[in-house]
């Protein structure tokens, strides 16, 4: 299944309904991104019939801007509110994509969200996986949504 259109549809719905901001999708990346600088990555894992994860990668200033929009309060630094808001966004994205992931009846469970933030870090999927990465633009800047699945044998 091509998940690009699903990712775009659920992202627009979540951002426009819950944060009330317009989001513009870009062209899916042709090369995987694993190194990040001054960024935050919020991730939710899929387990069971299909295994993988969804990650929301945002530059720090975009994460702060989105949290400000989400909560309606001033955010001037990366803090627990930003971590929680990005984790919740990843959770909603993964939850909204879940029905499309388990279309053939297999049971898929979601993990609790986890969040990484740092000046420079690398995220690597250990097992070979199929992936799609879609860039998006909001008024605060750009962010990426990455969906990865373990290859089916």
């Amino acid at each position: 299944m091509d998940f690009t259109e699903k990712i775009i549809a659920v992202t627009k719905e979540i951002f426009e309904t819950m944060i009330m901001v317009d989001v513009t999708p870009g062209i899916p990346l042709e090369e995987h991104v694993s190194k990040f600088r001054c960024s935050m990555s919020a991730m939710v894992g899929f387990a069971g019939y299909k295994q993988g994860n969804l990650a929301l990668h945002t530059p720090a200033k975009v994460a702060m801007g989105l949290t400000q929009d989400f909560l309606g309060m001033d955010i001037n630094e990366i803090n627990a509110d930003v971590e929680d808001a990005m984790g919740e966004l990843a959770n909603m994205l993964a939850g909204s994509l879940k029905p499309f992931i388990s279309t053939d009846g297999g049971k898929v469970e979601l993990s609790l969200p986890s969040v990484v933030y740092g000046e420079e870090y690398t995220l690597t999927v250990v097992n070979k996986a199929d992936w799609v990465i879609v860039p998006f633009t909001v008024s605060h800047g750009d962010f990426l949504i990455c969906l990865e699945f373990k290859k089916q044998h």
Partner: protein
Amino acid sequence: MGRSVLIIDDSSTMRKIVNRSLRQAGLEFETVLEAGDGQAALDILANQKPDIILSDINMPTMDGLEFLKRKAADPSIKNIPVVMITTEGGSADMVEQSRSLGASGCVKKPFTPDQVNEIIGPLL
């Protein structure tokens, strides 16, 4: 005495969003209680009895389904209506499981204030 609501979610962001959506939906509560998981909610319910409970499903320590089981077993709180608020609302088996454990309804994230009002309003 004014109405009260208990919001259960491990995300503080989501608790704030749910509270804001209730206000936007015109559902005013004099007292808004918050808990980060099912066990923390049961601790609150030992002393306070809100008019309605809104609960996430996927939470650490005690999830929403286990909370429903424990609540149903306690005569002092079993009649308080519970609405599940979850990203997994699209999953029919999760909704059915919640209903079989006593949930009065389910709101799927993302949601609008109108959707919140449509499901929660009639229970008040």
